[in-house]
């Protein structure tokens, strides 16, 4: 059987069930079995942190937040007890789902919060964590309420607190709300924000695994990643590995399909499912129209043309091979009616608004890009604007800044303009900008004189 055969939902198995967010239904469906199993075998040594970590490593699980970093390997970066001394280890569940086009973690938290909590518990066991935090974005008020209720239920059942289920281990979980800042999804910005500061990403190294929140070893994992951990403990690493395109891209994956499709929504499929299968799950392009472009991994990912997504395996390596990224698997579909320059302008506006302001290339560059795009689509672009835009974008990324926000901000520009240049040029050709139609030198002289008279120069 191929790893890409259709699967029964795993992460979304409980979606739509009555009272799916309540602990009674979760327990009735076999929930917390792994937590009980691991704690039950903790004293005897049957279950050790290393055993859980090894399972996760063997499963091939790669982080579902965007970077696709191997989860088990991330865990092993935490220094061993003899090296870290008395410092506690913290687990932070990253629920700051803000990448435009992404809405899978919200669904997991709202419909099946105990699945998330059990994943956090198991990861906490593996990492010797006594207090784990779930950082949820401020806008998700309802999801935060559901989670807080679930946490209270979990304490009442004795699955959290002091000496959990007689294991001798203590564990607390706290739900922490953000307050509106995209950058807090970046793990070191999330750490700063949890400490009660502005969400400014930190310079690395040191990496969070060595010195994270409150100067202590810290692991930050995405909501969906931690849910996968729970299922790996339930069903084993071999089961997880049996799903997916190849050994580097394993497990079930949630895909957020939005934009111009008949049935936008979250779809669960094996990691690496071909583009056409996903599009079919979402009911195809809206109104039977033709596909123009796809953003495969949220606003930060480079745009792909309809031709480029043909037969593309939708996994970390498949999309990377097409010079974009799977990111948070936020697939934004754009049909033939889409005005690409306007779409790129919209995304540029997002990044200009969300830059944290620490690094000059990003703080200054993102509003410049937006300003220039805005003037192009409003019919006031200059002939030189397109190349200038590409030039500015080319100077912002690749290590010029503390975090990768700038690389994300330039991706739509660096992909959108070359791939759909004729659409941008059409705007510029219709431009009313005085510098545009400068055919003859006398024109230039006249224009300069006019502008000087108008007080522009």
């Amino acid at each position, binding site marked *: 059987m191929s790893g890409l055969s259709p699967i029964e939902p795993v992460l979304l198995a409980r979606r739509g069930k009555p009272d799916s967010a309540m602990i009674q239904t979760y327990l009735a469906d076999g929930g917390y079995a792994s937590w009980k199993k691991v704690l039950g075998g903790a004293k005897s040594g049957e279950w050790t942190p290393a055993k859980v970590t090894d399972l996760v490593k063997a499963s091939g699980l790669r982080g579902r937040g965007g970077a696709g970093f191997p989860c088990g390997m991330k865990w092993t970066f935490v220094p061993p007890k003899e090296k870290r001394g008395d410092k506690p280890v913290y687990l932070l569940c990253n629920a700051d789902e803000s990448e*435009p*086009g*992404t809405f899978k973690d919200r669904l997991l938290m709202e419909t099946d919060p105990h699945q998330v909590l059990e994943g956090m518990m198991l990861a906490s066991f593996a990492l010797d964590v006594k207090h784990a935090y779930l950082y949820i974005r*401020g806008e*998700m008020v309802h999801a935060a309420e559901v989670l807080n209720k679930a946490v209270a239920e979990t304490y009442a059942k004795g699955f959290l607190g002091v000496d959990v289920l007689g294991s001798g281990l203590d564990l607390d979980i706290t739900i922490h709300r953000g307050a509106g*800042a*995209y950058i807090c999804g970046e793990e070191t910005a999330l750490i700063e924000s949890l400490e009660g500061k502005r969400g400014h990403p930190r310079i690395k190294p040191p990496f969070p695994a060595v010195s994270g929140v409150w100067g202590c070893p810290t692991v930050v994992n995405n909501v969906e990643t931690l849910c996968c951990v729970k299922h790996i403990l339930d069903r084993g690493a071999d089961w997880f590995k049996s799903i997916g395109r190849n050994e580097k891209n394993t497990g079930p994956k949630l895909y957020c399909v939005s*934009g111009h499709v008949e049935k936008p929504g979250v779809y669960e499929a094996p990691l690496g499912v071909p583009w056409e299968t996903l599009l079919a799950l979402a009911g195809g392009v809206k109104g039977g129209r033709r596909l123009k472009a796809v953003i495969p991994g949220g606003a930060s990912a480079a745009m792909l043309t309809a031709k480029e997504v043909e037969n593309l395996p939708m996994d970390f390596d498949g999309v990377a091979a097409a010079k974009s990224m799977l990111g948070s698997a936020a697939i934004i579909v754009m049909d033939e009616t889409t005005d690409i320059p*306007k779409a790129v302008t919209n995304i540029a506006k*997002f990044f200009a608004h969300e830059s944290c302001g620490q690094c000059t290339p990003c703080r200054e560059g993102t509003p410049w890009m937006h300003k220039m795009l805005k003037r192009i689509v409003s019919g006031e672009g200059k002939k030189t604007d397109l190349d200038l835009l590409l030039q500015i974008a080319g100077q912002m990324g690749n290590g010029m800044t503390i975090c990768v926000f700038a690389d994300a901000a330039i991706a739509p520009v660096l992909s959108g303009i070359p791939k759909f240049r004729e659409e941008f040029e059409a705007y510029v050709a219709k431009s009313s900008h005085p510098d545009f139609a400068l055919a003859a030198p006398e024109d230039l002289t006249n224009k300069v004189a006019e502008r000087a008279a108008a007080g522009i120069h």
Partner: protein
Amino acid sequence: MSGAQKLPVAEQAENPRVGEHGALSCGRALSFSRQTHDDLERLLARYPTKQAALLPTLWLAQREWGWISREAVDYVATLLDLSPAFVWGVVTFYTMYNRAPVGTHLIQFCTSISCHLNGAGEAYAECRKRLGDLKPGETTPDGKFTVVEVECLAQCDKAPAVMVNDDDHFVITKDKLDAFLGSLK
């Protein structure tokens, strides 16, 4: 520079609406209710430092007073042993802390890419027009509605998505504005 010469903030001490850290004044001293004090105590027990409780404490302040005034900044700073300037710096970083009073219904239109592709821009503009040509962030004179534009609300499958105060509203296209605004009386 056009218009009247503006004094630096530090020299506007006689202006009751401008605090030394730039926040608007609500004109009265503030302190938490008993209930909120208890909530704060529970909060503080969850973190190893007082400072870590800053975002949650600001949420409590906004729940209590609706927005974060100069007095609220000073009060929260005292509670958590922080400087008012630091607290104000944090307040201004995050978009969800209101730095001025808002209407009874704070209407937040998502206009990010998936909502943009489904007509959010038109719905947002039309909504402001219908409420009396409101500028972005402006409140109707009766204090009922404030309309703002926000970034992706993670409801992209129900685009255009709108949040009103803490509640989620789905598929608010231009043609659905009548029913939508009618539901917010």
